[in-house]
């Protein structure tokens, strides 16, 4: 973990010193856009996983309250 943190701080130091304004902009765009997709992918996985787990409870008889739509 400490190696990872040192690596991250090294990367951020390198970024601060060596990139031009436009390159910094491109970094924000690339990582930002990919980041939004990755995090929403995790939210997607969360929804699927919760529904599966709660569905299992259903089958084992411990039925949680249902909200009829």
């Amino acid at each position, binding site marked *: 973990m400490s190696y990872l943190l040192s690596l991250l701080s090294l990367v*951020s130091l390198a*970024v*601060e010193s060596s*990139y031009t*304004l*436009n390159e*910094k*902009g*491109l*970094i*924000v*765009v690339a*990582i*930002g*856009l990919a*980041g*939004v*997709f990755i*995090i*929403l*992918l*995790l*939210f*997607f996985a*969360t*929804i*699927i996983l*919760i*529904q599966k787990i*709660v569905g299992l*409870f*259903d089958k084992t008889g411990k039925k*949680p*309250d*249902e*909200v*009829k*739509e």
Partner: protein
Amino acid sequence: MDILKEVFQGVLYFGIGENWKALIMYVIGGVLIYLAIKKNYEPALLLPIGFGAILVNLPFNIVGIVTEFVGGEMAANGEVGFLEVLRSAGISTELFPILIFIAIGAMIDFTPLFKNPFMIFFGAAAQLGIFITFIVTLLILPHLGIDGAEALKLSAAVGIIGAADGPTTIYVGNHFNLIDYMGPISVAAYSYMSLVPIIQPPVIRALTTKKERMIRMDYHEESVPKLVKILFPIIVTIIAGVLVPMSAPLVGSLMFGNLIRECGVLERLSQSAQNELANLVTLLLGITIGSTMLADKFINPVTGLILLLGLFAFIFDTAGGVLFAKFLNLFLKKKVNPMIGAAGISAFPMSARVVQKMAKEEDPTNFILMQAISANVSGQLGSIVAGGLVIALVTILL
């Protein structure tokens, strides 16, 4: 003569320096009030913003930082008016946007998303405008004399207008301490949100064929267990808080509001968050934002640029969502109506309604509102995650 000058110093004020610009701000405030009342464009915000803009530009700024003549020049006299008190307490501390998010969380029903979880990706694709606008702003600002860290911060705040999410825009702008630009940034964010029914349809039509707009989509009419609705806000808060800590205040407050709504034992608090809290904070937020529209800071070329780029961001958000849906259709057996992608922006529920209206125009029996709502609530999540990521990345790069 001196007595007359003393009595009419409010009138004489406009003849000193560039104080005449205040008169233009009265007109701008009047236009915002007109749009709110006559055109019904986000009246809850545009009206207080418009009135705040008039108030703060009255002679000697009695409601903001009080000024007076000192040796023929205007100078702050150390006193603060009530709008400055509200700004320091509610905007500078980021309290108002956070409270608004609790209210929004209490209003959002994620059920349509649970029934169509796949729609969450449109909430990501429709954030494209944020990032395109960010880079375009960054390319333009140096030509207006804004460079370095200031350009990076301002580009981030201008890009976030594309989040189609007023509180997130204010949160990001304030995080980077862009007080001088808060007026145009907020006005752009809220004005374009209310103009979604005008901005989105031409973009959608330009990028889709009639046949694509007529695509029908299945909707799974199943009940969603209450436990799913309770676990979702808790787990999402943890994931967002761990991966993008900068988004924790936004995601956390949104999900807190949602948990109050879904837990089933805090009905009164949920109603209070949805009504009293939302109304009170909206009221104070609007007039406080208006108070940042001081003439000498608002009337400049950067304001025009911010307003223009805000529109640009909304257009590219819409295009991003639609093009992503069309891209998916290259691989999917059951095609998605590409208009759904446009509902991935955060303007809830306006964008979903626009998409349904357009689908109905093409085929009166086509009903895609629920899918559009799913994409729309995903846009809420996408915009705050994008806001958190932009803050985190720009902070590292400053």
